[in-house]
């Protein structure tokens, strides 16, 4: 029963992905939207004196608020009531809905206007209101468009980004029996005119709230169109529906969030309008004007007690994670989401809509980690997603393909003694077809060929030169430099030894990051523990750790401490781990390595930054060193992942090879159009994908020094 459920859920997702891939126009609009959002966010961030510190401050506000939430809720209710608002604490969706419906019926509301509220969508409020025969109209242009076309939002901030002006003009013409020209200005005039009457005739207005302030009993609404101002002022009844996690203690904290949110959402300093509403203002002679604030729990209070998932409550709903997510960029919000879309949508859906709904799209996360990098609150979205995948695996079991891909190290350990045979086997067309059908590995993807001698073996049996021992380095090899591209580790060894560095290879397993990507957290923890213990031993003897593979470095510095609860050893290992080029750069600066200018500046190198390296040096040491030896270096990037995502790009079908290629399409074109002679990247996995996708030669930069 279990396997069948997971199987059909996966099949359905595969079909949806394949279908989404064909929607070329939607994808272009989405890609455009995401790209521009990232650019404008970067520009807006430049205005901050210290954006890193600001982010820490915002994070601290959210941490504290969630910690003190019980008190804040009581304080908020007290102060809101003092100003004359009515407040209702709803324990779940149905509780909130019945309160709202009762209220609307009591006040005899026939026409309700709404401004954008994700929380109202979370509880599917519109549906219930319409069932009662009450007319409810979205006033946010994007939301109105999808309401009229009966669709779900495609993007969090721009829900109708996939619609062209012609689509919109036709839609409005049809639904309102008027002639709307295929022109944006004309569309705006029409919308303003149509909605003006709706605003004026409405009996109730329902809004969300972006932040709430406990000290003053205030709800804060951010908007650009001006519709929320009208929704919250014209009708006799104003209802606010908001999640309890929106509450902060005081005005200063609210201002920080208000300043942070638009930057990451649309690249604005502030939204055009920010309304701080305390109590209900009178309007002329109208009697009985009321404000009702529905504070929603719906699983949030329970979430506070989950060590990893609790961070979901820190989300300020900016949508930045969506704007950088590589798989979201291909499939959009209709596939990557249930009601809450995108990366943050996975833990949110698991918490308020249930694990099964989250599992239905969680496999779309390829664990690139970019969402965490862009999040204005530094939320550990990748690990929350890993936890959701972990819960899915416990419930439904693990996919066979994932299990096989996770154990690549064990396979290659058996393979290298018979290297020539193994390499022939994995190249053989018939074998690949069989592998595709039985193991789920796409036949089109070349598997890495194994060397007959691992680096560790080579290292152990060679003559060890005596070095001046200026420094001691323990190498962390991970998979490729040990089994496949051993020349990377050999060149590294030669280079470091020439600088007077004594090298050791402590016992180690590969990073185990695929365990995290596929939700096998306990297995990941196991690798982490073993590697940390081994590396800790050498650190105690004064060794620096140099890691050759970006994902492995990321694991040592970021993932392992999280997996091991920031144990003393894991933190020490993290702090003593260096990227390869970071270390070489240091040795060059210390004069221990002298780099000679090797080329005549004719060759142009295209540099690719692997996702996991974005959280580390972003490759800047590598680029600098390549320039020092005389190369012209161009960083070629789309700002998001190449799509390979570790073992993901080996899997057959839409949720694997196909999606990896769709994600990588734009990057491949950029490389091909860039006029570079050669591509350099430190990730051996990206290397396979980019080589195949561009037809250009891709090398590890160590071979250029």
């Amino acid at each position, binding site marked *: 029963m279990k396997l069948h459920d997971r199987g059909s859920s996966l099949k359905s997702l595969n079909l949806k992905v394949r279908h989404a891939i064909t929607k070329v126009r939607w994808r272009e609009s989405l890609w455009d939207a995401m790209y521009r959002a990232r650019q404008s966010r970067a520009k807006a961030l430049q205005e901050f004196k210290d954006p890193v510190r600001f982010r820490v401050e915002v994070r601290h506000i959210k941490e504290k608020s969630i910690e003190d939430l019980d008190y804040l809720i009581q304080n908020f209710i007290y102060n809101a009531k*003092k100003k004359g608002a009515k407040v209702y604490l709803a324990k779940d969706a149905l509780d909130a809905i019945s309160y709202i419906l009762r209220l609307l019926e009591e006040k005899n509301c026939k026409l309700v206007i709404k401004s954008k509220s994700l929380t109202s969508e979370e509880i599917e409020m519109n549906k219930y209101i319409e069932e009662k025969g009450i007319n409810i109209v979205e006033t946010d242009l994007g939301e109105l468009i999808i309401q009229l076309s009966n669709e779900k939002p495609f993007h969090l901030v721009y829900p109708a980004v996939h619609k062209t002006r012609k689509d919109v003009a036709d839609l409005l013409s049809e639904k309102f029996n008027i002639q709307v020209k295929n022109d944006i200005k004309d569309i*705006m005039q029409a919308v303003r005119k149509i909605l003006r009457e709706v605003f004026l005739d409405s009996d109730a207005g329902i809004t969300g709230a972006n932040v709430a302030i406990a000290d003053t009993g205030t709800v804060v609404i951010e908007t650009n169109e001006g519709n929320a101002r009208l929704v919250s002022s014209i009708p006799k009844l104003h209802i606010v529906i908001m999640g309890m996690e929106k509450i902060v203690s005081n005005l200063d904290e609210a201002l920080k969030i208000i300043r942070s949110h638009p930057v990451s959402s649309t690249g604005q300093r502030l939204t*055009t309008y920010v309304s701080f509403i305390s109590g209900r203002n009178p309007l002329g002679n109208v009697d009985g004007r009321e404000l009702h604030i529905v504070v929603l729990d719906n699983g949030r209070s329970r979430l506070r007690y989950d060590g990893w998932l609790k961070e979901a409550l820190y989300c300020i709903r900016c949508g930045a994670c969506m704007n950088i997510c590589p798989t979201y960029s291909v499939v959009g919000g209709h596939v990557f989401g249930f009601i809450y879309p995108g990366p943050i949508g996975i833990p949110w859906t698991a918490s308020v809509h249930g694990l099964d709904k989250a599992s239905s799209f969680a496999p779309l996360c390829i664990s690139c980690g970019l969402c965490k990098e862009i999040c204005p609150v530094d939320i550990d979205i990748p690990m929350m997603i890993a936890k959701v995948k972990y819960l899915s695996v416990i419930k439904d079991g693990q996919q066979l393909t994932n299990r096989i891909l996770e154990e690549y190290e064990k396979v290659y350990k058996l393979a290298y003694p018979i290297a020539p045979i193994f390499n022939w086997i994995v190249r053989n067309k018939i074998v690949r077809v069989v592998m595709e059908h039985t193991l789920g590995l796409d036949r089109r993807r070349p598997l890495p060929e194994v060397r007959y001698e691992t680096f560790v073996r080579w290292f152990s049996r060679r003559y060890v030169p005596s070095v001046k021992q200026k420094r001691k380095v323990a190498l962390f090899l991970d998979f490729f430099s040990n089994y496949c591209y051993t020349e990377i580790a050999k060149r590294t060894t030669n280079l470091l030894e020439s600088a007077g560095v004594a090298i050791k290879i402590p016992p180690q397993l590969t990073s185990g990051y695929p365990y995290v990507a596929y939700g096998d957290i306990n297995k990941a923890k196991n690798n982490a523990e073993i590697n940390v213990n081994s590396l800790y031993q050498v650190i105690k003897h004064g060794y620096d750790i140099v890691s050759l593979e970006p994902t492995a470095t990321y694991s040592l510095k970021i993932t392992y401490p999280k997996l091991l609860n920031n144990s003393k050893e894991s933190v020490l290992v993290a702090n003593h781990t260096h990227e390869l080029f970071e270390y070489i750069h240091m040795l060059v600066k210390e004069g221990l390595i002298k780099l000679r200018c090797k080329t005549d500046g004719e060759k142009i190198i295209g540099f690719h930054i692997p996702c996991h390296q974005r959280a580390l040096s972003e490759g800047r040491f590598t680029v600098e060193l390549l320039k020092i030896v005389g190369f012209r270096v161009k960083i070629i990037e789309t700002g998001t992942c190449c799509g390979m995502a570790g073992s993901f790009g080996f899997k057959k079908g839409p949720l694997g090879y196909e999606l990896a290629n769709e994600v990588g399409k734009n990057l491949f074109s950029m490389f091909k159009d860039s006029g570079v002679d050669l591509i350099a990247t430190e990730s051996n996995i990206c290397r396979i994908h980019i080589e195949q996708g561009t037809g250009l030669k891709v090398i590890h930069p160590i071979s250029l020094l």
Partner: protein
Amino acid sequence: MSKVSDIFTLFKQRFEELAGSVYLVGTEEECAMLVKDILVKRDVKSVAVTKVKQKLILELLDSGIEVLRGGDARRLSYVDAGISLAEFAIAETGTIVEASHDDYERLVSSLPRIHLVILNLKDIVHTLEEASSRLKEIYRRSGDSPLVVTFISGPSRTGDIELRLIVGVHGPHEVHAIVQAK
């Protein structure tokens, strides 16, 4: 940044980046003349006002412009322009801040196509942090009365269709900030 003129310059730059317009006038008389000028140029026949000085209202009536001083939303929706007073402005973000105890005041700056807002030069602060103390004063002053504070940073806008930025949706299409030096 302590010089008043620097702060004004920053405010003007930021507000105009957001498609708003900023003017600096000396006296109340100049302010009234400018208001009239802006309205007449746009063929405005009726305005809704809140908190503005009697003198200004008389000027407008003199010019044959109908002046509304209260009313409901429907009345307001037929008016061509709204004129309000700001509590203060924030230079760093290009923002005007209004405080209202009556939603009529909010509608004056949200329903009509054209919005004129008058403020004093000395009431422009540099940063959001500095704005905080002004805001706290407003809250203190209000006690337990209902209150809505609104930040306005330019005319209304949307990017919802094809990501094209369009100015002027449900809110004003134009916002004119008139800064009075005295």
